[in-house]
């Protein structure tokens, strides 16, 4: 039973023409005079409302799209990386060790505690086989509609910390990005994240499932530093967020950083307006998060495991009694530590169009 009157082809064409008219295409105008002739004045101004009009009237939204067509190689270059697959840009950075991050000095002298793997796998995992992971996403909600458009991946070798970032410039690149990540996780037994248990890893799991790919993360152990941070933060710190720990605990102050809440917008602006500069800021933001994550693990691993705590065998080692953070001098704005490798977020937004 159809309760909507089927549109005649004439009406359908009219509605479509109207839709196209709104998109800026030129279509011949109807002779509206004849259609209106026998209608009294107080009824119906518009005779054939388009879909857009009907919806706008019922539930107005705002915003307009401008589609973009730019050479993907140029985009990759602009972002400081290389186009490695259709829609995938890979950006590589290497930081020679030791690396100064705030007052923390990163080196490869620490290993990740082995007790993490309970009795089953008690071998110590050298830090060079540990992967640090952080994603930037299209939104903060769970569910299948949220996509990681950027994956940051960091790993040590003997003399440097290597940061690899994949950024997709279109949805077509997602599969290749995930495949590349999976390849990098091949020989990684441990992943370290900040809030990955609740957010990044389930999201990546969903993305792998959506592409019908096996989830390589399922085979890895996972250390989430957020619970550790919650226990070890000092009371006077406002919260246990990554940037708070970084500022208060490590004495590292970001300048001109793209706020995390604006990261989804950066990707939207790229898609809808072709704006690539915000993507560069998002890349920097992601890189900083990763380096801080490494520095936090180094601090966390300074507290050796006291045996017996096994609420969650994967994370028990991180939950030990807090030891005091080194005193942080109150930083005057001028004395903020600013790493030379962090580019400044400034200048007018540059469009790739």
């Amino acid at each position, binding site marked *: 039973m159809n309760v909507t009157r089927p549109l005649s082809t004439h009406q359908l064409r009219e509605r479509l023409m109207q839709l196209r008219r709104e998109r800026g295409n030129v279509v011949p105008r109807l002779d509206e005079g004849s259609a209106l002739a026998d209608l009294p004045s107080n009824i119906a101004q518009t005779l054939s*409302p388009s879909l857009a009009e009907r919806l706008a*009237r019922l539930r107005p939204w*705002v915003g307009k799209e401008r589609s973009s067509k730019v050479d993907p190689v140029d985009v990759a270059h602009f972002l400081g990386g290389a186009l490695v697959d259709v829609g995938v840009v890979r950006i590589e950075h290497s930081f020679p060790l030791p690396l100064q991050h705030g007052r923390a000095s990163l080196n490869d002298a620490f290993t990740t505690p082995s007790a993490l793997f309970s009795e089953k796998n008690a071998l110590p995992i050298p830090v060079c086989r540990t992967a640090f992971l952080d994603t930037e996403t299209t939104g903060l909600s769970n569910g299948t509609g949220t996509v990681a458009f950027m994956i940051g991946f960091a790993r040590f070798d003997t003399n440097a910390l290597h940061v690899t970032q994949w950024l997709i410039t279109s949805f077509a690149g997602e599969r290749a990005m995930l495949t590349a990540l999976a390849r990098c996780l091949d020989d990684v037994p441990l992943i370290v994240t900040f809030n990955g248990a609740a957010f990044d890893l389930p999201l990546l799991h969903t993305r792998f499932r959506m592409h019908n790919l096996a989830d390589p993360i399922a085979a890895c152990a996972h250390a989430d530093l957020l619970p550790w941070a919650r226990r070890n933060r000092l009371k006077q710190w406002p919260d246990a967020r990554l940037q708070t720990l970084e500022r208060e605990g490590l004495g590292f102050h970001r300048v001109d950083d793209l706020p995390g809440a604006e990261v989804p917008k950066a990707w939207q602006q790229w898609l809808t307006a072709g704006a690539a500069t915000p993507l560069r800021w998002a890349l920097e933001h992601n890189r900083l998060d990763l380096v801080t994550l490494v520095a936090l693990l180094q601090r966390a691993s300074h507290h050796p495991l006291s045996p017996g705590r096994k609420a969650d065998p994967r994370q028990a080692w991180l939950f030990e009694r807090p030891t005091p953070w080194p005193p942080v001098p109150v930083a005057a704005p001028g004395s903020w530590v600013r790493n030379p490798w962090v580019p400044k977020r400034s200048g007018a937004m540059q469009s790739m169009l």
Partner: protein
Amino acid sequence: MITCPHTKAMTLMMTTDLFDEAAEQAGYVDPRISLADRRRVPYADGDAVDTMLAFLQRRHRDRIAAEIIQPARAARFAAFPESIHPALRNALRTRGVEALYSHQREAFDAIHAGQHTVIVTPTASGKSLCYNLPVLQAALTRKAKALYLFPTKALAQDQVAEILELNRAAKLGVRAYTFDGDTPGDARQAVRVHGDIVVSNPDMLHQGILPHHTKWAQFFENLAYVVIDELHTYKGVFGSHVANLLRRLKRICAFYKVDPVFILCSATIANPQQLAEHLIGAPVHAITESGAPQGARHLLVWNPPVINADLDLRASARSQSTRLARIATTLGLKSIVFANSRLEVEVITKYMKDTFDADPRKPARVVAYRGGYLPTERRDKEHKLRAGTIDCVVTTSALELGVDIGALDVCILNGYPGTVAAAWQRFGRAGRRQRKAIGILVATSELLDQYIARHPDFFFAASPEHARIDPDQLLINMDHVRCAAFELPFHESDHFGAEDLPSQLDYLAENAVVHRDGAQWHWIADSYPANTVSLRTIAEGNFIVVDITAGGKNIIAEVDYSSAALTLYEGAIYMVQATPWQVEKLDWVGRKAFVRRVDADYYTDAIDYTKLKVLDEFEHAASRADRASHGEVHVVRRVAGYKKIRYYTHENIGYGNVHLPDLEMHTSAVWWQIDPVTLANSFATRHQAIDGFLGAAYALHHIAALVSLAELRDIGRSVGDGNGAWSAVVDARGRGTVRAQDGADLNIEQASSFKPTLFLYDNYPGGIGIAVPLFDQRHTVIERAIQVVASCRCKEGCPACIGPIPPSPAPASATLSPRAAAQRVLGLLGSATASTTPGMAG
């Protein structure tokens, strides 16, 4: 539906003992009733039912407008299918089930053959076994999983309890879980991974399952059956949403490469097969012959006595219903009273409690059960009903559904519920299987009720209504296109209903909700669309009712957004179990009403009015005198005040003002206008014309509900100016008053333009497709309205024709009576014979 071939069984059914014997011989015991329950609920004394019938027939023969006997029906059994798993058979045997009813076997065979199947059989006919059997069979033999959807959480819990009992009986090892808002977070993972049968509701599927389908990957990969019980509730806006929800479910199933069989169960409606097919978008096999036994049922149409012949005014239905329920309770019969509004439930409950629950130390014999009570209160009442400790329950449509409420003898309908299907569904709640029952429809003085009292054949012979859905209603469809885009990207070649999907998605792309990437559209907005779409109402946010008596802060009830303005205005008397509270403060933004316990000898009833503005005319038909159209309108509804009504006497003892925000919606409507010159020639004053329009609107509204097989409340009526400049309502004298846009009185005789318009509109935001068929049937509607008004025996107007009109002090000849005015308007509207002209012409 009233004829039954199994008259032979009637004698068998006369005594319940005999039936028990027969049942025992057949080796069949109803699996739904545990042995303990059967002992606890004694079979009613057949004599008491006969006593009540005889009493009514002897004393009130004149009030019985019609009487019909539905004969009893014997059981028809069928053998278990050969293929059935031995463990399952064993489980059923331990529960006393040795054979299947014929419809259960038929369902098993059809479902087993992979056909989508709808089962339409009466209450308590062993419907759930129709789906449990094939589902359990598949779970045992091939690890298949099933998703059960019930419209409410309570029904879901009933169902899981039943499966678990069957499961426990023979250690089947099938795991059935409910998954709803109450499922704790840590249990959810277990449900997703281990559940063989997941019992949920559409809202949960919509917000909690589909948007997270990857977490359910294992479940979906093995999903073989989707069971949808209480199919008949999926109509109107809700049904249209659910049809779209099932489109989304099928997309997800396709992603996981499964094609589940849908099993649907419905109460009696005219088009179960069609509704099922429309809902799931595929052909469905229908099973409509029940093999379950059924006790005989005496049905009466009860017309209250005339108390004022001039006005053709009858005693109130409420007092008659209360009286009938009192007789039943006194005779030791268990009864259920259905009222058509929550307010009515509370008033009748109070009257019954005044008689039977005067002693507060004794447990209550009378309870009220309706929507808006807190879940714990409802569970408690359900439990007491099943345990048989309640003698009379007063309820709204809330108990129409399959909530197990034990066995009842008498069912009283306080007023026609608005549809044939609902009336039968309600009658079905009494006299469940093996015994004689009484059903009484007490007619109110409303047009529909009196129509039925005068033409009982109309009711008894009428086919039940069609359940209508419009899955392609643009707003609803768009909501689900958004949700679906979040769940899986759309491809160019995809379809999602009749609307042109690419233009819908392009529209979303323009608004940065999705992004087109090659042949696909991907979700890009930073939001979770399912949270902003409610399947039940378009408006958001329930109100909670907070009791602040003696400094406390207890939540005593919940009220949905659409009825809050009508029940929770400041000054309103709000009742729970007939106990009155008064609303002291209404926090509209915070969605809270603060109430205080009071002792009031009155209750309150809201006065509201509606004005409409035409946005688009899609089609019209015009003659020289009049013009009928349909199209899109903007409706504004305002609660202007309330009346205080004293208990028992029902006199008006005061008014109060209400200041609340307007409720607005866009919907579709049919409207009529009369040429200004013709109108001026036909009526001496504009006021007379307004009276005529209001009276005609009343008659047309009721007839339109009958003709379009909709419920009265599905359609709204209004008389006003086509562009919303003024609107007219009937005042306390039964005459039209005109209000300007700002709500002030308007002197219509002085107004510059006068173009009264009579609207009948679809009473749901966006419309559910009532207007177009109504426009097509407008000649029938007007002809029937003319007949009804012409044949009415009242003088100036009564509820059975153009609405109640109190006697006017002026002699009838001096002025045109509202009824005559309405007849004149209807006559002018009926003159339209011109052919349809699409609004698009040209």
